[in-house]
Every structure is written in structure tokens, then in C-alpha cells.
């Protein structure tokens, strides 16, 4: 969709599925820019901030959260039918993220929390999946939580058009430019070796290894990363375990394994 030739501002809805709401919150956390951003769009529905009802017609659907119920499957299909553009924001929507850690043995896990029968209010539970496994997604804003300025940037691309390419390389390159040294030199596990770049390596810059919230990079060489870990005194099995944090249901993890 391109709104460049249209006079009316793009009509936007923001919808939350299974998530912590942190990515929607991140959008409100750009206080100084919030009205500038909202001034460019016709925000039709944002349940977090307004009691206005969901409209029938809109141009852009922003979806946060993983798909974890049959009801959510219907919701995203409806959104896809009505919206010209779909933006998935945050790890939950993009890779099914942390909720997907519960995907293996999902029914047994639900039973361990709720007993034999989950409350009616839970809806029809299904194993957590990314939005893109149900509908076509036009744009992704990665990480957990999103960097709100990445969201603004993506929205600009949707509204104004742009051929800016999404990075596919691994985080290591970005991290090296921060000149903070490498965790593997300190026998410490870090997922920057195989995680998609784009965040500027914020966590390693603050002394915390990468947990892989941007998801696996298409350029990742997991076998080689295991070898690096082993050489650096880190058990490769720990690398595999840590990769589950954000990639449990990513089919490319299996193919790269």
C-alpha cells in the first residue's frame, strides 16, 4: 500500500494478541514524538489508549503478540482481509518469541497449570505461532521489546514508500563496532553469533550477552557457532538451549541445526 497519492491519512488499527503489551507500550514511550507520529495517521483503533470501537475499514493493521488461540487465528485473518498493509511488531508476533517456548507439549503444559480443563475464558488454545504462519505479513519490527524508533521508521516506509533493505547479517558485526570486547573471551555464552543484526547490540553494550530476541539471522551458521562456543569453553548444548528462547518454532533453526 502506498498512501503518497492519497489526501486522506492512512487509517491505522493496533491489535494485541498473546503478549506482554510491552511493544505497544514502547510506542507510547516515545512521548516527545508520539503526537508527530499520530499526526500523520488516522488512528482508528488502539484499545490500549482509547475506548473507541474497532472500525470496519482501515488501511494498516499493526499486530503485536503471538497467535495462541483459534479466536486469534480468525482475528488475524480478518485483519489481513481488510488491511492493505500488515505490520507485525515484536518478537511474539514475528517469531512467536517467548510464548513459543511453551509450544512443545502445549496441551500437557496447559494441563499442568489449569488441570484437565482450561477455563472457558482461555478460548480454544493452540500452540503459539508467529503471525506470519497464519497470514502474509508485509513488514516486521523485530526484538523484545521493539525499539520504538524502528516502529516509526517502518511506519514511515509504509506511509511514504522506501526501498530500504532490512538487515540480514548477524549481530556480531554491530557489536564489534561498539568495541566492548567479546563474551566468548570470558567463557560466557552470547547469541550474537547467530542473531539477526539491527538493534545496535544494546545488551552487550551494557554488559549483558545477547539473548537472541531479534530471532535467528538468515546468514547464521549455527554449526560454526557451536564450534566457537566449544573452543571458548562454553558447552555447545547451552547455546542450543538458549536458542529456544526466541526460536522454538522457527523452522529455519531446524534446517540450520
Amino acid at each position: 500500500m502506498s498512501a503518497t497519492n492519497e489526501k486522506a491519512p492512512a487509517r491505522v488499527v493496533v491489535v494485541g494478541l498473546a503478549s506482554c503489551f510491552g511493544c505497544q507500550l514502547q510506542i507510547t514511550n516515545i512521548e516527545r514524538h508520539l503526537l508527530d507520529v499520530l499526526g500523520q495517521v488516522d488512528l482508528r483503533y488502539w484499545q490500549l489508549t482509547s475506548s473507541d470501537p474497532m472500525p470496519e475499514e482501515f488501511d494498516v493493521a499493526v499486530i503485536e503478540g503471538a497467535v495462541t488461540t483459534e479466536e486469534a487465528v480468525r482475528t488475524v485473518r480478518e485483519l489481513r482481509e481488510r488491511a492493505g498493509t500488515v505490520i507485525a511488531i515484536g518478537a511474539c508476533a514475528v517469531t512467536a518469541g517467548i510464548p513459543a517456548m511453551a509450544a512443545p507439549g502445549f496441551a500437557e503444559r496447559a494441563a499442568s497449570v489449569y488441570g484437565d480443563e482450561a477455563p472457558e475464558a482461555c478460548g480454544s488454545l493452540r500452540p503459539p505461532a508467529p503471525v506470519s504462519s497464519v497470514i502474509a505479513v508485509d513488514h516486521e519490527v523485530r526484538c523484545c521489546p521493539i525499539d520504538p524508533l524502528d516502529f516509526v521508521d517502518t511506519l514511515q516506509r509504509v506511509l511514504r514508500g522506501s526501498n530500504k533493505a532490512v538487515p540480514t547479517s548477524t549481530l556480531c558485526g554491530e557489536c564489534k563496532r561498539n568495541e566492548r570486547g567479546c563474551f566468548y573471551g570470558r567463557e560466557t555464552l552470547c547469541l550474537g553469533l547467530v542473531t539477526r543484526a539491527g538493534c545496535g547490540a544494546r545488551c552487550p553494550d551494557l554488559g549483558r550477552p545477547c539473548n537472541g530476541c531479534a530471532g535467528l539471522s538468515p546468514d547464521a551458521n549455527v554449526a560454526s557457532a557451536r564450534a566457537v562456543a566449544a573452543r571458548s569453553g562454553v558447552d555447545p548444548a547451552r547455546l542450543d538451549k538458549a536458542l529456544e528462547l526466541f526460536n522454538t518454532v522457527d523452522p529455519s533453526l531446524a534446517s540450520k541445526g
Partner: protein
Amino acid sequence: MAVTAISIDHIARIEGHGNVRLVIEDGQVLTCQMEVVEPARLFESMVVGRPFEEVPYVASRICGICSSSHVVTDLRAIEAALGVSVTDRTAALRELLVYGSFLQNHATHLFVFSAPDFLGHRSVFPLADENPALFDRALALKALGNELCTAVGGRSVHPITAVTGGFTHELTAAEYRSLADKMDAMADFAVEAVDLFDGFEVPAIETAGDMLAMVAPGRYPVCDSDTARFVRAGYDFDCSQVEAEVEEYPVGRSAAFLARARRTGSPYLTAALARVNASWGALSQRARYAAAKAGLRPPELNPFMNNLAQAVELVDVLDRCAGLCRRLAEPDGFEGSSEPVAFEVRAGEGVGFTEAPRGALFHRLAIDADGRVARANILTPTAQNVANLEADMRLLAEKLVGEGRSEAAIRLEVEKLVRAYDPCLSCSVH
């Protein structure tokens, strides 16, 4: 026979997904239910078998708004299980992190979620034109909470730097002083916020339930005491006994478990209002004066006054944060460094307890000898509050029906009550 059914699907301007069902027949409130329909993510099962270090990182994702609280609570649970003691400096930084989430949460709740109800709007945005000074300062206060969380935790949502035993990064003395000055600069507005919410008219109801808050002698604790108090029944318990004192029970209409005190069978409220009732005398002087001026003194049993209690806490938190930041800027302000302390991994079990912005938060963790999680239990403030909220909704509806108020008026007041509880439904289901 006159039957009125009020259904509010997907209540707006709260955190998460919830519905209200109210049926009134011939002036009698027959049904009064809060349905929590937030998707279940099964965090307690998710962390079993994971390395213990991952748990705060994973549990943070229970809720974006309360992420700092979940992280600090889990760190306390891990440290209780492994027998780790942190330095005073680390404890002070954790307090700052929790207070940052208080500022962020209370400012968002009061101005973005709650105030539009009282100012006749459906969202906060019309306020930008109508009262730009209020709008700008409200957002500036919320931004200051984010700035504090970002300064201490590395990010406003899902902190990065807080780990078992300490912090991976710290600010410079100049940065602490600058933060303290910003806290001071916002204090007058926080006092005005107390006056603003004092000016909003609310129905006079009194909750029949109890109130639960963290307590410590002579202080207003948020993350460094193990003692919880049922304020009205008047007894204390150690957080390690939380499951023995609080019963969680399932109801089909809610994906969250509900809760009641085992000793009394009473539902209860845990929130800013419970804290103010429990520790009023230990509020900062400025906060106590503001509260007294607004008529907020213990015992205050009107749940609508939770808004006012949050505004009073804004004043209190700004004063406390300014003091903490100035002390952190001094070379010998706090004993020890915030660098993570060394510890041995061993099998153990512990309960972490903090006051999250919305109330008492408990995490229990059992860790095996290899450092993997054997069992986890999470009790969030909102899960504890839902039963009391339903009871208060019934009280309110009965009162309004008795006064012959219109369906639209009842609907709005019930929504206002739900928002006054500041529910966090993502947390409640987790």
C-alpha cells in the same frame, strides 16, 4: 419484570483483555462478573527445566508495564534459593528500578487510562488541544519514569542490566545528580496531580474485602522486606508462607486464578491504596501533606481512592528517587559495589516478594543441583485483586441501581471502578 444486561466487551484503557457482565433484574443485581480473557502463555510451565539465570529474563516478558517488578522479584527468589546476599548499593539500584516502574505505571494509568473518564473523553489525546500544559507535563512525568528505568535498567521495558547478585552496568555520579534534579523539578506537578484527582467526584463505596501490602517497621518498603500484612485483619506473614496464607482458585470465566486469604476467607485488594493504608506514616513529608490535604488517611476503604493513592505515591517516589540518586552519586553513599557478587549454584527454593506498581507480587522458584528450575509459582497483584474487584463492582452496581441511575451511567461508573483497580490482565493470566 425489568431486566438490564450490561456487557462491556474488551474494556478499553486497561492493560490486557477483559470483559464485564452485569445483569440487573427488578432493581436486584443478579450477575456481576469480571471475565479475564487474556491469552494464557503458561509461564510457570515454560521456565521448568530452564537454567535459573534465564528466569528473570523470561518472567520479565509476563508484562511490559511491570517488567522491572517481575525481574527484581525473580532475582530475590533466586537469591533466596541460592543463599546470595547483595550489597546495599545493589539493593538501592533495585529500589530505583522498581520506583521507575511506579512513575511510569502510575503516570500512564492516571493520565492516559483514568483521567479521560473524569474529563469526558474517550482517550487522552483530546487533552493535547484542550489542556496542553497538563498533557505535556503528564507525558513528561511518564517520560521521567521511562528515563529512570532506562538509566538504571538499560531500557524502559524489559530491563537489561539487573542480574543475579548485582548489575552489569552503572551510571556516573553526574548522571545520578542530573536524575535527582529532574525528580525535584517534577515534584510540584506530582502535588498538583494529587489535587487534580482529589477534584474528581467518585461514588462513595467501601470495600468489604481486606488489603494486603509489604510492611517494614518505620518504612514504606517496596522490594526489601519479606513481611506481608493483611491490613484490616491485622496479621503479618513471611513471604515464604504465601501459598499457606493465600488460596488461588479457578473460575471458568477467568483465565486468571482468583485469590482469597485462607485465614479469613476474604477477598482482598493489593495496590497503592493498600500500601498507603499500611504505611501512611512513612510516606515522605511532602507526600503525607498532599495526602492529608486530599483527605486520604487510613483507614481509606473506597477502592476509587486507589487513583488518589497512586498520585500520592508519585510525590513520595519522586522524593525518594531524588534522595537515592544523590546518595548513589556520593563515593561512599552506599556500601559495596553493584558488580554481581560471586555465588555457588546449589539446590534450593525461595520466594521473591516485591510491591509492583499494582501491588504485592510473589514468585516461588525451586532450583535443582544443576541450576535448572524444578518448579515455579507466580502470584500477581491483579490475580489477587479480581475477586475483590467483582465484589466491589456488585456493591457499586447495587448502590447505583438503588439511586435509579441510568444504564449508561452504571456502565461508565463500573468501567471507572475497573480502571481504578489498574488491572494488569497480562500479568494476571501469565
